[in-house]
């Protein structure tokens, strides 16, 4: 399958799942009515689409793209399919940042921007700690994964400590935010997430050459003219920002950043200039699928999408790893 066909297929799947996501819910909407413009702007259906379904669908698309791009960049840098924002401790740092915001009640005064800024600060601070430890102990880039896992445990412990010390009200807010559910997606958040995902997709495609070079290893990349140390930090910051924005919106959604880039590489190769946009579309489609499943499996109740991505991701990862091992054998 050539590159153009792959792009077209990914776009078709993404659009189809988006329409399905908009139509599914407690009040069923017809895809044909939506596409043919039969729904008037004054109708209840339009209100549902405008204020509930569209923000949720757009947020889901954006979150999937951001997580998948972040994971794809990190896996390219580390040459390790186990790397994703979650295993590197960046999501944990962002969660800690948001948990602090909830405990201090800053979200009441400053709203969504407080969550976004605290997640970014938490993620960036974690990244800074990981890079500082790496520099202090002079380890190679692969050992950074171990540092990331350790930092992840540390941030998780501190978050738990905060949750055990805070009020019941704050605790329930932190829990309902952190489980990776899309049902609270607001219009403002949806616009912010989609805009971030679009910028991230285009920007990361332009960084593809650099990621390709660094996927040879930092030393070999240096030999072909890449300032490896500087570029690793820049890409790490970019990947952290993507993960932090996603955490700020819906909490922790695990496995998307790990499993989707892994699948995309198997389908479309290793040229990051080409696979990053595919990873973004793949991540969005996977998230939409998981969110649709979360809404329908125990209907009329809903599951958090993060639960579905975690279970699906885990099963898919075990399947792919065993298949890869069989192919090698």
């Amino acid at each position, binding site marked *: 399958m050539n590159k153009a066909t792959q792009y077209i297929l990914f776009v078709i799947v993404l659009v189809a799942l988006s329409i399905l996501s908009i139509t599914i819910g407690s009040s069923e909407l017809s895809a044909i009515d939506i596409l043919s413009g039969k729904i008037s702007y004054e109708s209840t259906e339009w209100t549902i689409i405008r204020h509930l379904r569209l923000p949720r669908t757009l947020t889901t698309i954006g979150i999937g793209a951001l997580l998948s791009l972040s994971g794809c960049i990190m896996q390219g840098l580390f*040459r390790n399919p186990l790397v994703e924002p979650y295993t590197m401790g960046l999501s944990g740092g962002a969660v800690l940042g948001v948990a602090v915001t909830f405990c201090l009640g800053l979200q009441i005064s400053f709203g969504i921007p407080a969550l976004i800024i605290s997640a970014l600060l938490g993620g960036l601070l974690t990244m800074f700690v990981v890079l500082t430890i790496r520099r202090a102990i002079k380890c190679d880039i692969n050992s950074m994964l171990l540092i990331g896992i350790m930092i992840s445990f540390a941030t998780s412990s501190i978050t738990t400590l905060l949750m055990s010390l805070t009020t019941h009200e704050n605790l329930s807010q932190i829990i309902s935010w952190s489980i990776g559910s899309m049902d609270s997606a607001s219009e403002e958040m949806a616009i912010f997430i989609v805009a971030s995902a679009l910028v991230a997709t285009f920007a990361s495609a332009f960084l593809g050459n650099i990621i390709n070079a660094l*996927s040879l*290893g930092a030393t070999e990349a*240096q*030999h*072909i*003219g890449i*300032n490896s140390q500087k570029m690793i930090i820049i890409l790490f910051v970019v990947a952290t920002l993507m993960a932090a924005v996603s955490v700020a919106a819906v909490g922790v959604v695990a496995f998307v950043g790990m499993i989707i880039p892994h699948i995309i590489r198997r389908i479309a*190769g290793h040229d990051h200039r080409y696979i990053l946009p595919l990873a973004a579309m793949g991540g969005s489609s996977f998230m939409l699928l998981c969110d649709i499943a979360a809404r329908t499996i125990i209907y009329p109740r809903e599951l958090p999408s993060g639960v579905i991505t975690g279970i699906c991701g885990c099963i898919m990862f075990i399947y792919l790893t065993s298949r890869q091992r069989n192919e090698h054998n």
Partner: protein
Amino acid sequence: MNTIDIQSLTVGYGKQIVIRDISLSGNIGDIIAIIGANGSGKSTLLKAIIGDVKQQNGNIFFNGINSYDITTRQRAQIVACVEQETYASQMHIYDYVMMGRTPFRSLFSLTDSDDDRRIVSQALDTVGIAHLANKALAETSGGERRLACIAKTLVQQPQILLLDEPTANLDWANKVAIINLLRTLAQSMCLVIVSHDVNEVISVANKALVLAEGHSLCFGDAHKTITPENLSQAYKTDICEINIDKESRIMMAKGLLKLKIEN
């Protein structure tokens, strides 16, 4: 003005000095062999030339320009390095070789130019692996990966090509193929080869630097520097010369000869 000119180079890791006061020079057409025992500083010298380790003293000039005055990208346009090991990733050989064009194109380009594609195809033909272009590195042998790495350095169109143990772990047929390739390449660039195999470099090098414990024992014409006396001093074991005919000679550690006779 030499293509490469190293003057009184001292390199170390922290306080530990690995090579001290090394000088050498070479031009296009030269094949310079760097030989010495394990830990004598051969690979460190190569790392200093490519910029992997910082020099503590001395200077490295490329075409008369001090290495301090050039960026990583500019250095990559002049010097390329064939690594001892190439990471066996799932990347296709064609894409891997294309990476060698990185110093000459925008870091943010989304496509490969026709010129880049032509240069890559030419390099794949030169090293004889055009038929492997669409194969993943992980699916190829060590020898094929070494050839892919050489092709990648060729598309960098360097004036100086550094090779760290270019024939290590290869069978004889692959060794001969690579040595012949190096002879061809030397017509358009200056090669600097680090090797443990003294006989291999005798067959190909016209200049040699013999290192002993981080010091330069001698540098100059390969015939005059690669001698049993210098090698005995560098490797701290008795080395003898065996003349095959008027033009061909091999070096052998006497201890190994003795073992062979006893066996």
